C-alpha cells in the first residue's frame, strides 16, 4: 500500500472522529452557505475557546479517574467576583488596574477551588464525585448569593454589567478575536506538552491506570492528583475570564448549563472516565465535534429539540465508528 495512504489510515484508526469531522464540514459546505464565512468561522473558534480550556482541565482530572463538577461554578463565581471588582468597586475608576485585579481574582477563584478539591480528595480521601459536586453547589450558590446581596443595590439586574470596554479584548470582542483563541491554544499546548513530554505526564497516566501500582513504584500519587485538581481549577478560572469578557457582564449562572457539553467533549474525544487513557489531543477533537455539531445545525435551522435528538444519535455514530476501528487495531483487548 501507498505509504501516505497507510499513514492516513493509521491516524484515522487512532482518531476515528476525524471521519466524522470531515463529513460535518462537507455537510456544512453543501447545505449551509453561511458556514464558510469569516464571521462564522471566527465565531465558531471563539465559541470553542472556553469549551476547549474547560475540557482540557477536565481531561487532566479524568485521566486520574477523577471528575470535577465544580468547574462550572468556578465559571460563575469567578465571573461575578471579577465583574464586581471591575464595575462596582473603586477600581472601576482605573480600568487597567481593575482588569488586572479581576483577572487575578478569577484565576485565583479557580485555584482556590482546585486546592479545596484536591485537598479533600487526597487528604480526606473523599470521592471526587461528591467533593466536586458539593463544591459546585456551594460555588454556584455563592455566586447567586453574592449578586443578590453584596452586589444587589445598584440595579435590579441579576447580572453585573458596566465592565470596562477594554476587558472585551480578552473575550475577543471587536477585532481582538485572536486573543482568546491564542490563550486557549496556549492552554491546550501546555497541557499536551505536560502530558506527553514530561515526567509529570507519565505519572498522571500511571496513577490513572492503577494508583496502587503507582504508589508501590514510588510515584507521588497524592501530589499528582492534587496538582491536577489545581490545574483544572486554574483552567476554569481562565475560561471564566474569557467568557465574562465575551459576555461583557458578570453572570451568576454562567456555567450552569455547560457541564454536559464539557464532559461530552472529553469523553467523545476518547478520554476514559475510569482514568489512564486519553489525552488533550483527543479532547480537542471532541471539542471541535461538539461545537461544529451545534453550529452546523443552528445554521441549518434545525428545530431546537430536534437538535437534541440528532446530537444523541450523532454521538452514537461517532462512538460506533470508534468501536469498529478499534476492533481492527491490534493489541487492544480481545
Amino acid at each position: 500500500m501507498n505509504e501516505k495512504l497507510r499513514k492516513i489510515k493509521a491516524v484515522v484508526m487512532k482518531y476515528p472522529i476525524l471521519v466524522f469531522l470531515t463529513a460535518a464540514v462537507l455537510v456544512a459546505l453543501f447545505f449551509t452557505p453561511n458556514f464558510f464565512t469569516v464571521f462564522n468561522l471566527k465565531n465558531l473558534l471563539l465559541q470553542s475557546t472556553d469549551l476547549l480550556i474547560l475540557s482540557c482541565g477536565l481531561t487532566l482530572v479524568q485521566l486520574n479517574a477523577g471528575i470535577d463538577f465544580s468547574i462550572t461554578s468556578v465559571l460563575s463565581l469567578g465571573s461575578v467576583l471579577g465583574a464586581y471588582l471591575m464595575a462596582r468597586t473603586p477600581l472601576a475608576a482605573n480600568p487597567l488596574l481593575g482588569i488586572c485585579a479581576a483577572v487575578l481574582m478569577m484565576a485565583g477563584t479557580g485555584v482556590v477551588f482546585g486546592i479545596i478539591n484536591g485537598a479533600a480528595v487526597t487528604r480526606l480521601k473523599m470521592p471526587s464525585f461528591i467533593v466536586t459536586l458539593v463544591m459546585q453547589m456551594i460555588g454556584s450558590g455563592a455566586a447567586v448569593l453574592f449578586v443578590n446581596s453584596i452586589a444587589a443595590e445598584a440595579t435590579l439586574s441579576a447580572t453585573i454589567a458596566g465592565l470596562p470596554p477594554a476587558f472585551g479584548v480578552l473575550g475577543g470582542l471587536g477585532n481582538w478575536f485572536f486573543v482568546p483563541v491564542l490563550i486557549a491554544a496556549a492552554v491546550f499546548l501546555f497541557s499536551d506538552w505536560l502530558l506527553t513530554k514530561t515526567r509529570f505526564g507519565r505519572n498522571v497516566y500511571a496513577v490513572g491506570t492503577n494508583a496502587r501500582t503507582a504508589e508501590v513504584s514510588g510515584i507521588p500519587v497524592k501530589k499528582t492528583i492534587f496538582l491536577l485538581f489545581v490545574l483544572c481549577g486554574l483552567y476554569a478560572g481562565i475560561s471564566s475570564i474569557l467568557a465574562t469578557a465575551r459576555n461583557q457582564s458578570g453572570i451568576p449562572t454562567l456555567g450552569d448549563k455547560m457541564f454536559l457539553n464539557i464532559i461530552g467533549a472529553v469523553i467523545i474525544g476518547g478520554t476514559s472516565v475510569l482514568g489512564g487513557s486519553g489525552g488533550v489531543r483527543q479532547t480537542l477533537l471532541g471539542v471541535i465535534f461538539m461545537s461544529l455539531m451545534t453550529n452546523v445545525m443552528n445554521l441549518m435551522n434545525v428545530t431546537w429539540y430536534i437538535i437534541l435528538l440528532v446530537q444523541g444519535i450523532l454521538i452514537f455514530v461517532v462512538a460506533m465508528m470508534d468501536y469498529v476501528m478499534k476492533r481492527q487495531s491490534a493489541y487492544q483487548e480481545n
Partner: protein
Amino acid sequence: MSDVILKLNDICKSFFSVEVLHHVNLELRQGEILGLVGENGAGKSTLMNILGGIFPMSAGSIEFLGEPYEPASPKYATEKGIAFIHQELNLFTNLSVAENMFIDNFPTGFLGRIDKKKIRAKSQEYIDKYDLNVRASAKMGNLPMGSRQMVEIAKALMKNAKVIIFDEPTTSLSNREKEKLFKAIRELKENGVSIIYISHILEDVLLLCDRISVLRDGKVVHTDKRERYDRAGLIRDMVGRELTQVYPSVEKEIHDKVLEVKDLNCAGFVKGVSFCLREGEVLGLFGLMGAGRTQILRAVFGLDPKESGEVRVFGEEVKKPSPGECIHRGMAFITENRREEGLLMPRPVSTNLLMVKNEELAGSMGVVDTKEEAELCRKMVKTLDIKTARPDQQAANSLSGGNQQKVVMGKWLLKEPKIFLVDEPTHGVDVGAKYEIYRLILNMAKEGSAILVVSSEMQELMGICDRILVLSNGRLTGEVRKEDYSQERIMKFAL
C-alpha cells in the same frame, strides 16, 4: 487408565494475526495427571483458556467423552465438567470467601434465595480440610496471597468435575500447602478425575504427573511417560538447549550493614522482628503461608503502617517510610501481587518497565528523554527475554504470566537499587528465565547491593541466599547460615 476422555485436534490460535498455537494435538486419559510444561509464553495458558471456553480457537476441534466439545463460554465448560484454576487468581476481593467459592453455582432455595448457611458450612468444611485458617465469612480482599490461592484451589476441588486444569497453582504456596494440594490431587485421581497440571517447578511435575507434554513456541514437541523423563530432559525439550546449572555461582563479598530493622510490630501479623542486611548479602526470608513475610517487607517499604519498631537505612532512621522516600534512599520492592500492585495492566510493556526509572530520566523541567527510554527498554526486554513483539504497544495484560513477572522484575532492575526487597521474584517464571534472574540478583549483590528475598520455594532460597531467616506466625524463629542449610532444619523453625 487407558481410555482417552479429552482429545484436542489441531488447535490453532492467533491473537491479531500473530499465531501463538500451531496445530496442537493433545490427549487426556481417564484418571491420569498430565503435566504440561514449556517456556514462558509457550502457549500453555492459552491452550487451557481455549479448553475452558475463555478464548475461541482459530482452528481445530475438541472431543470430550467421545462427543464434540465446543467451548463457547466458561459456563459451557463448567457444565460439561471441566474445572479450571487460572494462573491469575480469579477471585472477587469484595465478596466473602464462601461467596467466592460458590460464585458460579450458588445453591438457591425459595425465591432464588441463596442458602447462605449452606455455603458457609460447606466452604468451611473445605477450608478446614486444607487447614486454611481463615473464616468462611472473611472478605477475600483481606487475605494474604497464599490463602487466596488455596481458596481458588479449594473452589475447583469442590466442583465434582471430570477434568480439572491447574495452571501454576503453587506459585504462592509453601511446601506444606503444596503437599496438601498434591494429596488432594492424588485423591481425585483415585476417584477417576483427570487432571492437567501446568507448572514451572519441574520437580513437582516429575513427582506428580503420569505423563508429561512439552510445549514449545505453540507446538507440542514431545509427550511421554514420566518415567522416561528427567529434569535435564525436560529442560532440553522446553528450551531446546542444555541447562546444567540451576543456580549460578557468583563470588562476592559481604560488607557493612545497610538495612537494620529493630523490633518491628505490625497489626498483630508481625511481632518483634529484628534483623539486619549487609552490603553484598542475599538474605532469604522463609516461612509458611501467612507467616508475615510479605508484611515485613511492606512495612519496611512504607506500604503498610507499622505499629512500632525502627528501620534504619544506611544507618539513618527512616521515621515515616513511604515508597517514594524509600526509593529515594535507594530501595526497591517487588510485590507478590503483580496484578494489583505490580503492573499497569492495560498499559504497554515499555511504560511499565520505565515507570520507576522515569524520575531519573527527566531532565530540566521534567521533560523526559524518549530516545534513552526506548534504548533502556529494549535492553531490558532482551536481558530478561520478555516475549513481546512490540514492547511499546503490547499491553502488559496480554503477556503470558511469566513474562508479566519479568516485567515487574525488569522495572526495578533498571533502577539498580542498593537495597532490594523481593517477594516471590520467580513467581511463574520458567527455568531458563529463573536462572537469568538469579544471576542478575547475585551480580547486583556482587556490585554492592543488598537483597532480601522472600520465597515459598525453599530450594530457591537455599540456592541463592547467604543466610535464611525463618519466620513463624509473625515471629523470627531461627536463622540458618549457608553452611548449615538443610530442608529439615529450616522447616523445623517454620512450623
